[in-house]
């Protein structure tokens, strides 16, 4: 689709996309992530689950190197991301696409500019500036918006969109960016079930066809099935469990989400499995 | 000091003047003088009104203006900047014997005094307020201040509760007449021009000894020939119609010869680091 996204080269064993070792992060005196260690191979599709406040968003911010880790080491594409700066950082960022949980859009910029922001890593600065006056690469923006069913909102301001529509615009940006790794922080939280499912399907199909790596934060557990190869569960800032989606069971979930856990549906669906 | 190397006639003469009267008046009457000089020398001449003392000196010193109407202090300042490059062309007859007035509000109950030591004694500790005109002015600040210091042995700040700078001669008169300040100092011509009503409300309590004041100054690099032409034009100011109007405004009979040496006293004064109120 894009000349810039390199095909997965099979010859040398590709380094893992992410490798974390004993990673910790604290705000003030409070450690919100502790001793996180895992590896994510290229092309893997991984879901991250965990109760509210477990540290999922913080983990994502560490992975895309906007926050420095306070302990341990993070390697991205085989390179330690601690000392990255300037051009290298930019190249790395270009390859990592992030969808945030909220405030994904700049409210003062029209949808088209918000979507084309995905191109920033590839464009030269002048081109990026010109684009603010005369949008560059409009077809790409239009195509991406079409995939999230918002083609007619190209010129709208974010404030005119409903909550779900805004999240979809942010998704379109991710599609325009075509990164090697996609991190999506609750991409479907404000979407209805059909759209949520379709967006997840879209993400995972893109990941499959392009060989991209995909990390998704999810609260809707029923979307796990079929789309992800691995689940990481965070609790209280620690890696609580990891395994295939099928491995999730009732006790595990009860322990993960707290002892008072009494969700009817999950018991049922766990039985179904 | 810049050495005068190219002494050819300028293609244009710009006149500046220190801003010590209302802009309208100055534009009108210095405009007349400019026209007179243009007629006499054949060089296009223009008066540019500049509302800043330092800017006038800078303009002449850096060759941005060719002829400047300076007060005594500004002349000395210009001399300090330019050295012998500065040449005084002419001065008014009255400039050789200039005087300043100390005035007081009529209701303040301050009688005329014989000298400023007496005034200092009179107002000491009485919470009187005093205003000078502009801080850069000779006749409404420097000379009154130095006479006051010489005669009373004290700085005005030690005697008056407040010493302010109202901005110009006219405002000094107005403020003292209104009673906003008890006393003030200003030069002679602005006081003489004022209405009798104002004068009655702010009578003179002391007249200073005579001192030298304003002059027209120019740059040597203009060339002796041009300077002579200007000199002649100024001395013959009363011969033209516009010249007479201007002289009338300047409260003068006519211009007379003048030489830098007459202002060297001020240069010495400035060099000695005279008290200017800080």
């Amino acid at each position, binding site marked *: 689709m894009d000349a810039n996204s390199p095909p997965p080269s099979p010859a040398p064993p590709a380094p893992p996309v992410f490798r974390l070792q004993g990673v910790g992060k604290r705000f003030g005196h*409070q450690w919100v992530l502790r001793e996180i260690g895992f590896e994510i191979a290229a092309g893997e599709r991984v879901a991250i689950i965990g109760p509210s406040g477990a540290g999922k968003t913080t983990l994502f911010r560490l992975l895309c190197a906007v926050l420095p880790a306070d302990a341990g080491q993070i390697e991205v594409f085989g390179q330690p991301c601690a000392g990255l700066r300037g051009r290298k950082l930019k190249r790395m960022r270009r390859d990592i696409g992030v969808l945030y949980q909220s405030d994904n859009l700049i409210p003062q910029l029209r949808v088209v500019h918000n979507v084309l922001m995905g191109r920033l890593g590839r464009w030269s600065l002048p081109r990026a500036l010109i684009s603010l006056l005369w949008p560059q690469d409009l077809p790409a923006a239009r195509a991406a918006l079409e995939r999230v069913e918002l083609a007619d909102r190209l010129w709208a301001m974010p404030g005119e969109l409903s909550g779900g529509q805004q999240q979809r615009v942010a998704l379109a940006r991710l599609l325009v960016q075509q990164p090697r790794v996609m991190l999506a922080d609750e991409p479907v939280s404000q979407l209805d079930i059909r759209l949520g499912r379709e967006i997840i399907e879209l993400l995972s199909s893109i990941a499959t066809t392009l060989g991209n790596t995909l990390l998704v934060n999810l609260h809707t557990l029923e979307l796990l099935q079929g789309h992800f190869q691995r689940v990481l569960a965070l609790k209280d800032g620690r890696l609580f469990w990891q395994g295939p989606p099928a491995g999730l069971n009732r006790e595990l979930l009860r322990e993960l989400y707290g002892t008072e856990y009494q969700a009817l549906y999950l018991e049922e669906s766990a039985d179904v499995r | 000091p810049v050495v005068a190397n190219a002494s050819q006639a300028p293609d244009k003469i710009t006149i500046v003047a220190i801003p010590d009267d209302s802009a309208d008046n100055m534009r009108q009457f210095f405009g007349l003088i400019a026209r007179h000089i243009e007629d006499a020398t054949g060089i296009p001449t223009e008066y540019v009104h500049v509302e800043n003392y330092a800017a006038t000196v800078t303009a002449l010193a850096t060759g941005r203006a060719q002829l400047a109407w300076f007060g005594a202090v500004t002349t000395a300042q210009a001399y300090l900047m330019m050295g012998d490059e500065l040449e005084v062309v002419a001065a008014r007859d009255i400039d050789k014997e200039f005087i300043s007035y100390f005035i007081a509000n009529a209701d303040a109950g301050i009688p005329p005094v014989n000298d400023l030591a007496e005034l200092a004694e009179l107002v000491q500790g009485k919470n009187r307020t005093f205003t000078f005109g502009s801080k*850069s002015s000779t006749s409404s600040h420097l000379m009154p201040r130095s006479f006051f210091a010489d005669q009373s042995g004290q700085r005005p700040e030690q005697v008056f509760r407040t010493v302010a700078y109202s901005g110009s001669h006219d405002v000094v008169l107005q403020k003292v007449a209104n009673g906003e300040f008890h006393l003030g100092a200003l030069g002679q011509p602005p006081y003489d021009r004022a209405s009798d009503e104002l004068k009655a409300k702010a009578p003179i309590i002391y007249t200073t000894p005579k001192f030298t004041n304003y002059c027209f100054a120019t740059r040597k690099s203009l060339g002796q020939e041009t300077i002579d032409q200007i000199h002649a034009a100024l001395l013959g100011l009363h011969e033209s119609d516009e010249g007479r109007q201007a002289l009338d405004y300047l409260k003068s009979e006519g211009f007379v010869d003048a030489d830098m040496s007459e202002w060297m006293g001020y240069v010495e004064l400035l060099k000695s680091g005279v008290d200017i109120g800080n």
Partner: protein
Amino acid sequence: MSADQLADNTSGSPRTAAGDKFPNPSPLPEKRPWGPWAAIFTIAVLLVAAFTSAEWDFTALTDPDQRRLALGRMGAWLAAFAAPDFSAEFLRHCWALTLQTLSAAVIGTGLAVVAAILLAMGSARAVSVGEEELTGWHRLFPLRSPTALLCSLCRIIQDILRAVPDFVWAVILVAVIGLGPMTGALALALNITGILAKVYSELWDSVDERRYEQVRVAGGGRLAVLFYGIGPLAARSVQSFTLMRAECAIRNAAVIGAVGGGGLGADIWYQIQFGAWDKVTTLLLFTLALTLSADLLSNFIRRQLRSDPNHPRAARHQSVAWQLARSYIGVGAALAVAVWSFWFMGWGDNAPPGQQARNFLLPALELLSGEAWQHIAFFERMLRPDLEPAFVLTVIQSASVPLAMALVGTLLGVLAAAMLSYPHSFSFMWESHQFTGEAAPWWLKLPRRLQMVLARLTGLISRGVPEVMWAFLFIAFFGPGLLAGTVAIAIHSAGVLVRVFSESIDNIPYRRFEQSFSGSRPTCFGLVAVPTAWRDWLTYAFFQFESNVRTAVVLGIVGAGGLGFQFSFNFEWFRFEKAATYLLMIIALTVIIDRTSRLLRFSRV
């Protein structure tokens, strides 16, 4: 079960980890914030210091006899204004001046905006330094990285640019390019550059980093982050402040006249100096009219650029094309004014009184020739400040009076502006129904709108009338002294601040108010609008404080002396060595106040 096995195989087994390395203090200590109290305490201490360090004379207020006399004087003084000079000739004169002012001020501001954006890119930490791993106080060291050094350098440059009064720039420029309105405009531009760059960089820095993290992550470099993230997010405040400064420049650009131009500001200053109150009134009326139209025009521009979809005007929107066109109309209107200004300065009928019209843009070209710069040597002595200890002590002491006056004056001004910004705000007085859902009948709307018009007029007059005039008015009442000067400063500050205060409130999207509206507009204002705009308010208030400390003219007129006055005094007497010492002190104060204001952004008030 396979799941259990998997769980046991995970590297950091959760159930066993003791977490020695990552101790969490638990339970969380409940830390009640002490920031607000510290702030209140500091202000109280400063106030006490201000009142004890200088002599304040309140007799005109307390003594009934004095009060009667004072009122009489004030009345007489006001009466002097009651007869404006409306002669046809003078009106023509005023009109010509208006055009000149407009052109020079717009050129000055326009150049300043461009220069300030460039400078602010250097001096905004968020732009020039960008992402940093350091946090907290480590960020205060300029030597921590080359970019941080650049940032500090730019900040010093902008501090100097605004600490040096515009007339000093003008005198320096006279040496370089000669006399004329363009010289004044350039001097104005230098000074305004310092002002705008400071405020821009502070506004940019105060945007929450989390909100533009997305642009960074998309791969944008620091400049892309500025143009795609920080810029748009701060655009409204930046616009408001720029337009406000443009208005100020139009109003009181006395410097244009100081070096041989003409203009309303300069002319008012002349006429004030020579006590021609009838002319002052006319000129003031012209200024107010000009200010008012500048205000209306800037509102128009703002509205075109404002892109709040929940705004009523936007809701009536037409086609997409029209919506897009609106921003171009806004930019176009601003550009048209700028182009006209250059045309006028170059080829229009632009003669300052008593001079022939000519192309005043040409002298500026001399800036390009190295020759002109030789004259700068004229001011070389400024580089050798007089550092004799006794004198330095005098200099330091002379800072106390302006500090005391500026502190009290700014506080009063901020207070008044805060009170006035409620009736002054368009969103709360004119369009409140957009977010309250209230159906106000005309008899309810009318008084509100009247209130707004009155508040705006009050603001307009208190900032439109020069500080010097207020000082004169209050000298008539209080007599010369600190009090008169302080009240003058307070009134002027209130006028300037109320505009930016209420605009920063009008810039908040209505959706925000809508979601927090609890039935009473004042409550919504106090608890939603003000906290949201608070950081901008602080920026503006600190800036105003800083410039009040530098106020020189008022201090001279009320006989209070002080730093700025002494500086210009010595400069005008060509005592450059002494002037330089005062200037150093002024710059030091400016830097201190500026850095304090920036430090406060780290804390949450």
